């Protein structure tokens, strides 16, 4: 085939090339026509538009979504902040204008001139920022004399405002200015320099929901830089409002109780996994990040030995101490090493190999069964259980109880904790596991590390009959119009490795911790509320090195860490809680009373509703301000003031 066809020869190509030349010339003719239209026919009009450079873009920042607690108490909103700028082109004479302005806002002329100097070379059409976030008095003073101050521009911008200063700061997080690395990372495609983004906590994790979309206006301005006509407007899209699972009343209570100490309190609804409290102490002032922090302030935050920037509830890893006995008890019962009738005699020490392992009570507990062992936290009982179960089975139960791995809470940098096993130690140190180490692990000392949140998930699972829920921080997300877009759903992450019988035995023991006259947490007993729990006292220095000092005389850094995990009421629990106080002393004296007070606040319903009502009334006073773009656009006269295109706020 194709034999009779002419192969493409030079003449054929020439013929086709002639056509190509014609087509190309035709295309250029189209360009020429368009050029003629733009430069000759429309030229006059377009020259006029270019001469004043009168079409400008003004961007409008979106109103970031607000953050509420589970009852609708407003925690974070935006306040209007007024920025003072100058447009050099319109501010002639610049010197005189600056002098007048300096007097009004009480800033030295030299400072202002320096700011202008720094921006030399920038377009004289672009506003140069002179002072951010000026106070009400300055605002009024400038406003009144605005006709005397050509080229001075006031922009109103929404600024993040943390209403409950320092409260739940670690959970909520903070905003601060985007840095150049973040800009380059490509993770924030819509951001430009100077924008604020969430850097920590909920503000960071839910950045996308909260942020909203930037808007802007295309405007025509006159020679004075005043807006003559708004050509196009793109409304900024307000961010979505977030309702957290936390209960501000409990949160506030927890923070008050932790005041002055380092530690964490977390509480959960055992039936849903909703985090009711997440307090970490000491806290920090989130507003300082928004308003700009001095280098010194930042240094002092970072160098503080109590680590205020750490969310101890999820990042703090500590030996779980006697709270771990819950796990050892489950392991012992499940493995059949003990049952509810097993008794052990505690003389105050346990001899293993050629070493003496002491019980915390020097005189011993006498004859001990599982209930008494939990209630009075007898070390000797659990040494023996641990020894019989063995380290690897113990590690299995601990892991199945949720220890040693992150709970999966939707926050950054959650710590995993550590559950040691023989293989782990061999891998890590090259040395084989020693039998005595199992005894330490059985009472929560040794290599064990847990976060308060992990202990909370464990106590919550005990409370609800064995189901581990993922800790939830997001209750719902609503649009500005109040439509719910996302609903936090409870999520089962596993079950405790315990039969119903085992759970019943352990729970009975935990109830006695608070309710038996010799229970370690009898201090947490409240009339009318049935609390179950487990104390823990994590030694910081080895017991045998302990100088013969009474705890009161010990320097703070040698004091043990105090733990208390609990749930209440013992039947049909409504709240589970984990309290941790760094160097707080005994779990019974430092941690248990905090848990008791929070439980009391939550479960004494009359008092609770009274407080909620009081908060709600306060809340009305601080009612969320309307999103900026919901207001009518600036009038012509006003518009000269708002080159950033926002209507003024009252």
């Amino acid at each position: 085939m194709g034999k009779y066809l002419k192969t493409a020869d030079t003449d054929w190509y020439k013929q086709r090339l002639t056509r190509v030349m014609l087509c190309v010339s035709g295309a250029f003719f189209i360009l020429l026509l368009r050029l003629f239209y733009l430069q000759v026919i429309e030229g006059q009009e377009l020259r006029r538009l270019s001469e004043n450079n009168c079409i400008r873009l003004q961007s409008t920042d979106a109103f970031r979504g607000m953050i509420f607690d589970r009852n609708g108490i407003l925690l974070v909103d935006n306040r209007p902040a007024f920025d003072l700028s100058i447009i050099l082109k319109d501010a002639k004479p610049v010197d005189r204008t600056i002098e007048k302005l300096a007097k009004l806002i009480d800033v030295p002329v030299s400072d202002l001139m320096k700011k202008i100097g720094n921006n030399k070379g920038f377009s004289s059409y672009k506003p140069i920022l002179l002072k951010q976030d000026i106070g009400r008095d300055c605002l009024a003073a400038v406003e009144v004399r605005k006709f005397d101050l050509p080229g001075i521009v006031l922009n109103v911008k929404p600024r993040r405002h943390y209403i409950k200063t320092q409260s739940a700061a670690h959970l909520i997080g903070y905003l601060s200015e985007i840095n150049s690395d973040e800009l380059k990372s490509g993770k924030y495609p819509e951001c430009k320099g100077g924008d604020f983004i969430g850097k920590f906590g909920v503000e960071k994790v839910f950045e996308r929901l909260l942020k909203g979309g930037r808007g802007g206006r295309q405007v025509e301005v006159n020679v004075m830089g005043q807006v003559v006509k708004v050509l196009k407007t793109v409304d900024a899209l307000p961010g979505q409002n977030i309702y957290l699972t936390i209960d501000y009343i409990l949160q506030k209570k927890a923070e008050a109780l932790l005041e002055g100490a380092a530690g964490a309190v977390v509480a959960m609804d055992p039936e849903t996994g909703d985090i009711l409290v997440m307090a970490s102490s000491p806290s920090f002032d989130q507003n300082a990040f928004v308003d700009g922090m001095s280098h010194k302030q930042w240094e002092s935050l970072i160098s503080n030995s109590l680590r205020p920037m750490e969310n101890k509830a999820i990042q703090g890893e500590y030996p779980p101490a006697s709270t771990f006995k819950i796990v050892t008890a489950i392991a012992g019962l499940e493995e059949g090493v003990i049952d509810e009738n097993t008794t052990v005699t505690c003389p105050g020490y346990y001899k293993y190999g050629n070493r003496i392992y002491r019980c915390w009570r020097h005189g011993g507990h006498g004859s001990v069964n599982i209930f008494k062992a939990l209630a009075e936290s007898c070390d000797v009982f659990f040494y023996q259980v641990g020894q019989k179960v063995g380290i690897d089975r113990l590690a299995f139960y601990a892991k199945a109880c949720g220890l040693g791995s992150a709970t999966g809470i939707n926050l950054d940098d959650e710590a995993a904790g550590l559950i040691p096993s023989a293989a782990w130690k061999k891998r890590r140190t090259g040395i084989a596991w020693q039998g005595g180490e199992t005894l330490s692990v059985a009472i929560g000392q040794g290599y064990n590390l847990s976060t308060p949140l992990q202990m909370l998930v464990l106590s919550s699972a005990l409370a609800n009959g064995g189901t581990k829920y993922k800790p939830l921080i997001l209750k719902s997300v609503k649009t500005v119009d109040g439509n719910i877009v996302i609903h936090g759903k409870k999520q089962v992450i596993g079950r405790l490795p315990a039969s119903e019988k085992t759970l019943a035995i352990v729970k009975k023991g935990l109830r006695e911790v608070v309710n038996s006259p010799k229970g370690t947490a009898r201090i947490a007993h409240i009339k009318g509320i049935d609390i179950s729990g487990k104390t823990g006292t994590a030694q910081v220095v080895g017991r045998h090195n302990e100088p013969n000092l009474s705890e009161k005389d010990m320097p703070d850094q040698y004091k043990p860490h105090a733990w208390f995990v609990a749930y209440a009421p013992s039947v049909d629990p409504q709240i589970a809680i984990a309290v941790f106080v760094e160097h707080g002393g005994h779990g019974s004296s430092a941690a248990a009373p905090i848990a008791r007070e929070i439980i009391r606040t939550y479960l004494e319903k009359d008092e609770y509703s009274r407080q909620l009502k009081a908060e709600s009334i306060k809340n009305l006073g601080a009612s969320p301000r309307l999103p900026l773009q919901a207001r009518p656009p600036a009038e012509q006269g006003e518009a000269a003031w708002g080159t950033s295109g926002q209507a003024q706020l009252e």
Partner: protein
Amino acid sequence: MFDRRFVTYFDWGLLGLTFLIGLFGLVTLYSAVTSATPTPQKALYFKQIVWYCIGMTGMVLSFLINYKSLYRWSPAIYAVCILLLIYVLMMGKYVGGARRWLILGPVSIQPSELVKIAVVISLARYYSKFADTRGFSLRELLTPFLLTAIPFILIVKQPDLGTAMVVVLIAGFITIFVKIERRSLLYIIISCTITGPLVWFLLKGYQKERILTFINPDRDPLGAGYHIIQSKIAIGSGMIFGKGFLKGTQNALSFLPEQHTDFIFSVLAEEWGFVGSVVILFLFLTLIIWGLNIAYRCRDPFGTILAVGITAMMFWQVFINVGMAMGLMPIVGVTLPFISYGGSSIISIMICVGLLMSISMRRFLIE
């Protein structure tokens, strides 16, 4: 090997034309980078001169090489370029949300610019081997389709829709030049109308937005719409004689986006007016006709098609870039040959000129 006829047949006219446009380009770039605020980028101007020097070397090397040897080398050239594209996709530098850059010591280049030449050479090889007056059938077009589709997909992934589009347009230009069988052409047109909407779904959000904005700039008054308006104001305000060198105000105040790369024509048109713009368009048209004339005089099918392909590349870049600045085309990042700032763009266009020279001066070497 050196033949005195090289000097006699050397295409001095093409060299002169190149210098003329290049000079125009440097002058315009000077204006674009010096009067730009907030920060004049004078360094870019000197860098561009360095690019021109490197480009010139590339040009000399390309015309010293007998273009016929490219016939043999074309599979290797193509393979290397594709590998570079894949490498860039995986390890390239991330700039402004796209991976287009390959870092070579102090400089970064865009392999996608070189790929355009590689595609032209490969297509010229294939078409020159099989061309007949009947035209190519669908089945015969499968190879050229794959040769184009592979780099197209890789470039779209970067993502760089503009360059990817140019690759397809160049390939289309060459294919139509060597003729498609009538019935096959009909099939292609029908299948394109069907698959067109499908491609629409494959485009990224911002790419769709750009096309929609092209049709109706009001859709994005703060972004593309604003750029088109500012570019039109810049061009139109030049009127007949222009505002004069360094006097363009749209440019000076950064009202134009990317004024030294994609929107450089607006700078030129503002400062030199209708008269200057017509001159530069005329120079480009002359260059393109010159290239086609080289194809016309070449008596070897491979050389002819190669010259057509290279010229097609110049044509599309000029047409799209200028059309975009005047609001006739969607806003896609396509450089204006010789004038826009950019090392890869300058080097590849100078190589193209060198190849045209190579074809031009070897026209006597037939058989």
